[in-house]
């Protein structure tokens, strides 16, 4: 992908040169349009880079915000995209996936596992994480790393096969924008009415509609912020204190912060997040190959484009199947023209596929002028789903997932840390024994209380002393025990010896952890 490039796609560009067809990009087109107007069509427009003359005829794409297309300064004013509503297979799929992901987000925190225990709760003050039957502790952060790696490989895997399906169907930015667009449509009306409303002077209708829309957005955003905080603070208590207006300062801050972020991202920034901010949008190009599914306009079939009657045979007029209705541009949530080839702004939402299919149906042409296809398929070569890259991603994915499952199943919910006293290397007792002091930090990560037994080994005649009788630790509690090890100096082979502390639950032979430590003392020769 080019740094900020519009003719973004490599293969498309290569082909472009080969066929010597002109494929304009959106901004290029806007700029030229402005220049054209300025010159009042006195001279023919020319492409700056190659000097090729553009194909004549009025097949220019009407811009989304053509009225103020001219660039005013070095910095471009943002032009709001008004995506037209679309129906079809992929639109239904997106609604389905959005419902699933949003349902999960808004529903999960309300779900309890056991008596009053929130099934999914990241309890920061208590430093524990409830996940259904499990409780994870900061010591288990390792699993989070594995899950993140797993997620990354899932993303690579699906991107290699299906392209940017994540962006188009499940990314929070897309999903929340979809909800906000739905609210916008309910209040402001369809695309044309929205654009009309935007140009309208401030009157009663506009005031009512704008306050209605922003009000609905704000309510939805605050609910989102509230739910998000509910993942970190028990949501039932949060609901009670929200209603009673007794939220703590930080809870209030985060509810409003996430509310504001939702409002701004889904309401205003929208496609700019994908084009300017999202790193994934930029590096996904590295995961594409000619066998990756992309949304593409079949240029061979569509060109030359042009308007025609429904009954006319396009061949007789020397036209392709594209009737240049520009619906694919009007439905695009990022405001691009898919007929210009694959572009970095394309989030693969397939809205253009849905809308073009309905047009093809009306025209009684075969569907799929804009379709999910691969670069190879477009060029008439065979496409392969199973290829080395997919095998590699898939293999790693399975291996990591299995490692994760096995390690979670084998996890021992007992944490032991041994901290050796640093102030004295060792001390001698009146009996002439060498003594070292340790602090045992025992963490019961299980869901029930246990009584633990401690022992130490590693040196002949090693004695463990301390307050060790009936060490009972409640679920989720940490106990620090100061213990002493005593050894006869004649048994010390080295100035530093390895010793092992062993902590075992009285009621389970499986709940056992050993931890290494060092024992310092003089060597008598």
């Amino acid at each position, binding site marked *: *992908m*080019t*740094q*900020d*490039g*519009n003719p973004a796609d*490599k293969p498309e*560009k*290569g082909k472009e040169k080969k066929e010597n067809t002109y494929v304009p*990009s959106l*901004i*290029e087109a806007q*700029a*030229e349009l*402005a*220049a054209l107007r300025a010159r009042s069509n006195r001279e023919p427009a020319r492409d*700056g*880079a190659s000097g090729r003359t553009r194909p004549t005829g009025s097949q220019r794409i009407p811009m989304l915000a053509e009225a103020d297309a001219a*660039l*005013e*300064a*070095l*910095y*471009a*004013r*943002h032009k709001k995209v008004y995506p037209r509503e679309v129906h079809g297979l992929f639109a239904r799929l997106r609604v389905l996936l959005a419902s699933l992901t949003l349902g999960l987000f808004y529903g999960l925190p309300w779900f309890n596992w056991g008596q009053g225990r929130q099934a999914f709760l990241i309890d920061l003050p208590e430093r524990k994480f409830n996940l259904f039957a499990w409780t994870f502790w900061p010591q288990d952060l390792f699993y989070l790393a594995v899950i993140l790696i797993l997620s990354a490989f899932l993303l690579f895997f699906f991107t290699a096969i299906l392209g940017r399906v994540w962006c188009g169907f499940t990314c929070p930015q897309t999903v929340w924008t979809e909800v906000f667009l739905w609210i916008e449509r309910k209040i402001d009306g369809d695309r044309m009415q929205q654009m009309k409303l935007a140009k309208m002077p401030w009157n009663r209708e506009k005031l009512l509609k704008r306050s209605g829309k922003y009000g609905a957005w704000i309510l939805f955003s605050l609910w989102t912020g509230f739910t998000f905080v509910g993942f970190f603070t028990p949501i039932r208590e949060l609901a009670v204190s929200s209603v009673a207006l007794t939220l703590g300062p930080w809870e209030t801050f985060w509810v409003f912060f996430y509310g504001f972020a939702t409002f701004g991202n889904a309401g205003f920034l929208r496609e*700019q997040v994908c084009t*300017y901010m999202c790193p994934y949008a930029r590096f996904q190009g590295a995961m594409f190959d000619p066998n990756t599914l992309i949304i593409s306009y079949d240029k061979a079939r569509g060109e030359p484009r042009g308007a025609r009657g429904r009954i006319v045979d396009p061949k007789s007029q020397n036209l392709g199947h594209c009737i240049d209705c520009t619906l694919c541009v009007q439905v695009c949530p990022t405001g691009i023209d898919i007929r210009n080839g694959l572009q970095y702004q394309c989030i693969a939402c397939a809205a253009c596929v849905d809308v073009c299919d309905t047009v093809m149906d009306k025209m009684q042409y075969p569907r799929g002028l804009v379709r999910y296809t691969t670069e190879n398929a477009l060029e008439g070569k065979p496409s392969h789903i199973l290829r080395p890259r997919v095998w590699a991603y898939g293999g790693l994915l399975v291996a990591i997932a299995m490692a994760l499952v096995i390690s979670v199943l084998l996890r021992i919910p007992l944490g032991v840390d041994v901290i050796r*006293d640093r*102030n*004295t290397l060792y*001390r*001698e007792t*009146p009996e002439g024994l060498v*003594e070292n*002091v*340790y*602090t045992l930090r025992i963490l019961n990560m299980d869901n029930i209380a246990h009584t633990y*037994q*401690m*022992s130490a080994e590693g040196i002949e005649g090693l*004695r*463990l*002393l*301390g*307050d*060790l*009788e009936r060490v009972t630790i409640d679920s989720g509690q940490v106990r*620090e025990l*100061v*213990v*002493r090890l005593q050894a006869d100096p004649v048994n010390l082979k080295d100035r530093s010896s390895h010793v092992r502390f062993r902590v075992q639950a009285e009621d389970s032979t499986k709940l056992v952890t050993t931890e290494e430590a060092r024992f310092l003392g003089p060597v008598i020769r």
Partner: protein
Amino acid sequence: MADFTSKFWEWYILILVGLSFVFCFALVIWMARGKKPTKIESHGHVWDEDLEELNNPLPAWWLYMFYITLVFGIAYLLIYPGSGVFAGAIKWSAAGQYEQEMSVADKKYGPLYEKYRTQPIKAVAANPEALKIGQRLFMTYCTACHGSDAGGGPGFPNLRDKDWLYGGQPENIKASISDGRNGAMPPWGAILGNEGVHHVSEYVMSLSGRKVNEEAAVSGKEKFQQLCVACHGVNGKGNPALGAPNLTDSVWLYGGSQAAIMKSINDGRSGRMPAHGEFLGEAKVHLLAAYIYSLSNKEPKAAK
């Protein structure tokens, strides 16, 4: 501070910062008013065969972010003491913040300590809740010298046993923590000479029933009676009022080997327990004394 810096440098920096603001504002305005691109062209930079850098315009809100950054910088210098010359609108300082946080913490945690202050130490020592607090305080303030188990080390007394240099009653312990102690054993090497030191050490070891050279011990006893009894007493039982250790038991603060004892006599010893009364406040000292008192009034048992 004033010894090392002069106002000149603060003004020097401030003027440089001010000029930088002016320069940055001018730069942003100047750059934003650059020539209008009528066409999207390549800058001519090409990487990896066909990756090109184009002169696409940035979104306008990007430009506003530059202004926001500059305004933020100026506001920061006005509110916080960033300039050195001007203390800032809210008079913030690190020391002030520390004091404020401490006073908040005192209000919050003070009552926890305060409720035990009026109870007698022996009663506090029997309260498991108070002992938990006491142990945490001990872990924070005392373990560096006395060890996590209060067992001490060479030069630092064991607080778990029944042997006390300055007395083991609750009020003695509290006084030791609050006001500190200075234990000074003067050096006797110059007066006794090498042989004298050796003889006295033999006598001292005989006090705790160890096998010694009888002849040397007799000679050492004479010298002990002249020089040492003032502090350690006629029987070598020590004197808690002075912190002079009991020499008849098996507890040796600086080691019980003959070499260590000779070194103590020859070079003297100096032990210092710092005063914590002002630093910790009476309530915490009270809890610590109770915790330490509790240690020598129960004996931990050995596991297996």
